[in-house]
Every structure is written in structure tokens, then in C-alpha cells.
């Protein structure tokens, strides 16, 4: 489609301008490299050890995807369960809230203890950060269904399941996707933090490595890679949203 092509060109143009501004600003204002290194230096550093970045990228991507998928699915599921079972919601929802106040980072040892040094452990942290917003938004979305539409479906003799699948979930979909977009970013954050619990590959490892050796170029390289992954993933989720939630794309 020419529209998407035009968008792509605009995007590339925007990136190119940003790159030039970055490079130019560093050179022009003589910014000290440990505040902000030149973009070209960073890219060269990445090119020097491409495998490390590619491997890290893929590994983090895998963790992110698993965490996102499971967190998203669990979040929607719990949203639906809470919507249906008021008592369950009142009993468990506060615990969900509380669970979100536990800083995983303080329990690295426990995570390793329970889930080992596996990809799974990282995915679980991504999951942990992801599911909560999805649950909240699913619940909210389900609650905004027009009662008159519910009445209509019920007058057709619709079962609760049909009501859910044909009316409530579609109505909630726009809201769910808001949370999923947020979750796309959060699951990556979770994966990266998860990699800080003793791992050898991943963007989180590269970031940590660079942070503590104060290798500013490597910090920026890891940040760029993470930003690329995050923005790309977000864009994919947003694209899926545009396809699935076409009717509310009124703008």
C-alpha cells in the first residue's frame, strides 16, 4: 500500500534526521563522551561484536515473547474470571495488587532458586510485570459493555460463553489492547531485569556489564538495542491492534 510505504519513508527519514542531529550535537557542542558518545562510535562498537548483540537480542526477544504471551493470556483470563465471579474478584484482586508491589529485583536468589538459570525464569518475571495491567483493563473493558446490547444477546438466548465471546470480549478489545501495548514494553523490561539474575546472554546482561564497567559506549549500545526491540515489538502489537480493532480506529 502506498500509504504504508509513505509512512515507512517518513519513519526512515525521521530516524536519519535524529541520527544526524545526535552526531552533529555531540561534535558541535563537544559533549564529553561519557555523557553522550557519538552515534557512530556506538554503532561501530556494535558492529565490532555483532554476535553478542544479535544473540542477546534474540534471547531477550524470546523471553519477552513468552512473558508477554503468557502474561497477556493470563491477564485476560483473570480479567474475565474477575468479571464473572464477583466474590473471586473481591478476594483475589487485592492480592494481585499486593503482588505488584513486590520488587522482584530484591528476590533474585529466590527466582533462581525456584526457576533456575533458565529462559523460563526470565519469562516469568516478564510475565509478572505484564499480567496486571492486562487484567485491570480487561475488567474495565468488560464492564463498559452497553447493557442494552447484553439484553439483546440474552433475548437471543445467548449463554454466558456466547455473551462473552461475541459481545463482551469484542467490546473490551480496544481496552485490552491498550494494556497489551503497555505490556509489550513491560515484558521487555521484565526480561531485561530477569537477565540480571545471573545470566550470560541477553540485552540485560550487556546493559549490566556495561553499566558496572562504566563503558558508556556499551551502555548506549545496549540501550539502543533494547529500544529497537521494544519499539519494534510495540509496533507489531499496535499493528495487530489496528487489524483487529479496525472499528474503533475512527481517527
Amino acid at each position, binding site marked *: 500500500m502506498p500509504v504504508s510505504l509513505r509512512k515507512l519513508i517518513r519513519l526512515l527519514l525521521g530516524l536519519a534526521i535524529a541520527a544526524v542531529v545526535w552526531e552533529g550535537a555531540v561534535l558541535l557542542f563537544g559533549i564529553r563522551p*561519557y555523557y553522550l558518545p557519538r552515534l557512530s562510535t556506538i554503532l561501530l*562498537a556494535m558492529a565490532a*561484536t555483532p*554476535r*553478542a*548483540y544479535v544473540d542477546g537480542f534474540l534471547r531477550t526477544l524470546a523471553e519477552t515473547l513468552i512473558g508477554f504471551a503468557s502474561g497477556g493470556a493470563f491477564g485476560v483470563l483473570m480479567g474475565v474470571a474477575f468479571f464473572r465471579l464477583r466474590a473471586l474478584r473481591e478476594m483475589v484482586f487485592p492480592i494481585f495488587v499486593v503482588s505488584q508491589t513486590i520488587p522482584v*529485583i*530484591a*528476590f*533474585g*536468589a529466590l527466582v*533462581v*532458586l525456584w526457576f*533456575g*538459570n533458565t529462559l523460563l525464569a526470565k519469562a516469568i518475571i516478564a510475565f509478572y510485570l505484564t499480567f496486571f495491567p492486562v487484567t485491570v483493563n480487561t475488567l474495565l473493558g468488560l464492564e463498559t459493555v452497553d447493557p442494552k446490547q447484553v439484553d439483546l444477546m440474552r433475548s437471543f438466548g445467548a449463554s454466558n460463553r456466547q455473551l462473552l465471546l461475541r459481545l463482551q470480549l469484542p467490546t473490551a478489545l480496544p481496552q485490552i489492547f491498550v494494556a497489551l501495548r503497555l505490556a509489550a514494553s513491560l515484558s521487555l523490561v521484565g526480561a531485561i531485569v530477569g537477565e*540480571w*539474575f*545471573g*545470566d*550470560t546472554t541477553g540485552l540485560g*546482561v*550487556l546493559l*549490566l*556489564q*556495561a*553499566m*558496572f*564497567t*562504566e*563503558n558508556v559506549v*556499551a551502555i548506549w*549500545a545496549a540501550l539502543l538495542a533494547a529500544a529497537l526491540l521494544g519499539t519494534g515489538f510495540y509496533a507489531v502489537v499496535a499493528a495487530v491492534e489496528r487489524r483487529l480493532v479496525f472499528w474503533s480506529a475512527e481517527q
Partner: protein
Amino acid sequence: PAAELQKASLRLKWLPQAQFAGFYVAAAKGYYKAEGIDLTINPGGPNLLTENLVATGADTFGLSGGTDSVFAARDKGLPIVCIGVSHQITPFIFVARKDGPVKTIQDFKGKTVTTWFTGANHVLTGMLAKEGIKPDELKIQPQQVSVTPFVDGSVDVVTATYYNEFYTIQSRMPKDSLKTFVAEDYGITFPRDTLIVAEATAKEKPELVKAFLRASLKGWKDAFSDPKGAVDTVMAVAPTLDRAQQEFMLTEVKRLMTAGAAGKNGLFWIDADAVKTAHDFFLKYGVISKPVDLAAAYDASFIQSIPAADRLP
């Protein structure tokens, strides 16, 4: 034959870097396999307590924080034993600017000093105590990841390890513009980077422990004799590291590991006197709540069982 290999893991205190070169060299050269151990090296991370992981059995061996963390772990009832000490002298130094207001440790008073609360703070407290200074006479702040505040002059004294931060500082400021304060000059020694195992392992699998120590020692000796090759081995695991920095680190680590009693007794020697001094100090300052049974906490028998020739660097 792989079937007879015994599975084990070593938890480092941090990510792969030349600080742990010997272990990586030993693994790469198959020294652990030769001893019948299928060893996995697990890196550490922030807030990842090696003592905790070893105590719970998640890892077999651990390179933990130091004598201070071993005391703390024992104090809290974690069933771990130290089987070797890597850095024989304090790896921390305190750095000030030569042209700045801090000329002697007395000048610390009223100045901004940043330090890590992961052990280095005790070194500082100890040094100050020897000079009769109370910690609340200076502005001690938690030190952040970057040394930039010091380089920029917003901090008067910064804590550094010889092998990492000191390198960064020197790369940003001329070496001769710096004034350093070394713990040993004030009669303080906090050996760090302790090798630990669970009590159960020490009791039930002494052969495994010894085999591990033997292989590790070989690896370290190789690393010291061929630093370039050792850095290659480390960088194969962590390719984004800065080579110059790693070479510097290995040099410094060698100095720390071969200092003091190690010169006479070899690598990973447990210097009972240094341990005792540190223990008494921690007890005095309330870092640990009650005296620790040092004999149970520090078991030198494993390292001593290895022929001195194999231990000496």
C-alpha cells in the same frame, strides 16, 4: 566419559570478567572435566546473594562477597563454609583529588564521601576508627554506579576497586592527579572474594570440593602465566567487554590474589589472622550480632590438602 562426570555449578559474584579469569580458563581447558566435574559457571548479578544460592543448594560452589558476607551469612544461620579466600588484601581504595581539600584521612571530616554498602563501608569505618574519626563526622553517601560525580568534582572522596573503578577514574583523570587511601596503610585488611560451599557439601563430598579447588588453581595459574590468552577466554564469553580494561583487571586481580599470605602459602589461602581481625572488628561494630565460630565458618582443610606446589602461583 561424560556419564561419570559429576554435575556442579559455580556461582560467581558478578558477570563474566577478568576478575574470574581463572575459573573460565580452567573450564575452557577442561581442567574440571579432568577432575570429573561437569561444571557450569553461573554469573552473578545485583542483589543476587551467592551465600543464599549456595546455602539453598541452587549452586554447589560460590564466589561470594568476602569475609564480611560470610560472617553475615553464618550470623543469620545460613549453612555455608568458606573453603578459600581469593583476594588476600582489601581490594577497595578511597580516592581523592591531589589538588583537592582532602590530603589526609583527617580531612575526610565534613567532606562528601561515597561508598558502597556492600562491604566497602566497613573498610571505611575501620579506617576512620583507627584514626579516631566517627562516621557521622563526614557525609557518607551511597555510591552510585558511576564515578562521574567524583570526576566532576561533586564528591570529594570516592570508593573504587583497584581492578574496575580505579581504571575508569584513571581513564578520565591523569593518574598523578589522584590521591589514594589504602586500608592496609591503616592496619585494616578485609580479605574478599571468598569461595564457599554448603556445609552439607563440605561434609558429604569433600573429594568434589578438593577436585574443584585443584582444577581452579590450575586455571588461575594458567591465567597468570598467559594473561592475554586468559582475557581471550573471558572475552569469548562476554565479547562486548573492553579488552584493555580486562587486561588491566587481570593484572590487578593477580596482585590482590598473590598478596600477603598467598605469596608464601599459595592462592586461595585462608589467612586465619586476617579473618580473626575482621571478625572482631565486625563484632565490635555490630555488623554481626554474636561471635561466629570461625573454625566452622572457615575450613582451610580443603585448600591445605592440595600440595603447596600446586597452590603457589
